[in-house]
């Protein structure tokens, strides 16, 4: 299989556009489903709004983010949107920490761990390739040593734990469905950040991550080894040699022809003599250049 063909064959979870679509759908599902549950209870409009603010504000903002980046405005200010997302997750992490301090709960603790992991993953991915990476000297950060795939694995495991614990504690089907949506959101959101990190590795942006670099290096070595399988390089060398020989023959013939026309003594030029003449000329040039 050629390199170009290999590049195009990607799994669905490796395609950024597909992952973004899934995250958007999941966020939409979370908001609609949680509000549909709220609407069944006897809450006033203001209480419903407060419920959105308390429980779903993060999902609303991230949904807006994924909608904005589809448009030209979002693509142009992609780095600004990412910075806002990093600050938002920092704030959410702090509030999760405060919630834990006020009332410890295993689910809250898991959410805090997930938020911390996502915040670190985002800050070490979205700021790469920007001016802020150098200004804040992020290449010296210890979290930069962690592979992008490790962050995704951590979030995956924590989300799975979150789902399992919620399944055990939840008494209704609606709670189960909502928890499933939220867990999948965490996983796919982390996947989106991971895919961006992989993309940045591919274009070599401020990478100081030995894990990803080794993978890329191995990939390059393997593909070069496949092409240097004896045949292709030898063919290329032979073809080039033949072309050069043909050019030399043509030049020789023309010079001989010119010699005959002008009545000069025939000069038979050997390929090795031509090369020797060329070398001599090059040496003379170098010597003259040295003297100057």
């Amino acid at each position, binding site marked *: 299989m050629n390199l170009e063909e290999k590049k195009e064959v990607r799994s669905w979870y490796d395609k*950024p*556009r597909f992952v*973004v679509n899934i995250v958007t759908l999941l966020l939409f599902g979370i908001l609609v489903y*949680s509000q549909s*549950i*709220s609407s*069944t*209870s006897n809450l006033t409009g203001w209480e419903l*709004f*407060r*419920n959105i*603010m*308390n*429980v779903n*504000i993060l999902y609303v903002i991230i949904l807006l983010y994924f909608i904005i*980046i589809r448009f*030209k405005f979002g*693509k*142009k*200010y*992609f*780095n*600004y949107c990412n*910075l806002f997302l990093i600050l938002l997750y920092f704030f959410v992490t702090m*509030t*999760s920490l*405060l*919630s834990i301090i*006020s*009332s410890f*709960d295993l*689910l*809250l603790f898991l959410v805090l761990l997930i938020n911390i992991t996502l915040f670190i993953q985002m800050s070490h991915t979205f700021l790469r390739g*920007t*001016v*802020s990476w150098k*200004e804040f000297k992020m290449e010296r950060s210890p979290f930069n040593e962690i592979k992008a795939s490790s962050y995704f694995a951590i979030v995956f495991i924590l989300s799975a734990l979150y789902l399992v614990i*919620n399944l055990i*504690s*939840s*008494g*209704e*089907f*609606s*709670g*189960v469905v*909502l*928890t499933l949506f939220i867990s999948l959101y965490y996983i796919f959101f982390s996947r989106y950040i991971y*895919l*961006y990190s992989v*993309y940045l590795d591919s*274009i070599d942006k401020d990478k100081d991550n030995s894990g990803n670099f080794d993978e890329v290096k191995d990939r390059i070595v393997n593909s070069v080894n496949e092409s240097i399988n004896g045949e292709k390089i030898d063919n290329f060398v032979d073809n080039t040699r033949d072309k050069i020989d043909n050019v030399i023959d043509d030049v020789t013939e023309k010079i001989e022809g010119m010699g005959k026309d002008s009545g000069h003594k025939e000069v038979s030029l050997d390929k090795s003599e031509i090369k020797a003449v060329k070398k001599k000329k090059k040496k003379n040039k170098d010597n003259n250049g040295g003297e100057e």
Partner: protein
Amino acid sequence: MDMFEEIEKQKKDLPRIKSLTNEVQKYDLNIYQKFGVLILFIAIVVGIILGNSYNTCTPSITYGSENCISQFDFSLMLEVWFAGIMVGFLFFGMGHIVYLLNDISNKLKK
């Protein structure tokens, strides 16, 4: 084309912090504007404190569970922030009006 490749072609880089600070330092604020900015910062801090102090109970409607988990009250924090922004902008606007009136009187004196 890959989504990230499209974005890479169009995206703008973030501004440097030094250029931002230089831009901010150009402006001289009078006492009313400084007071307005101070109110904004106070509102942010008070909002966070109140949101943490008066926790909200996540109702059973969202998780389908009968247990009540007290969490940070975002809605209260946003209400305090909104009030702080309104008052802060009010003072900031008053300060700007004072600045403009000063400017006009200085030009008339000339």
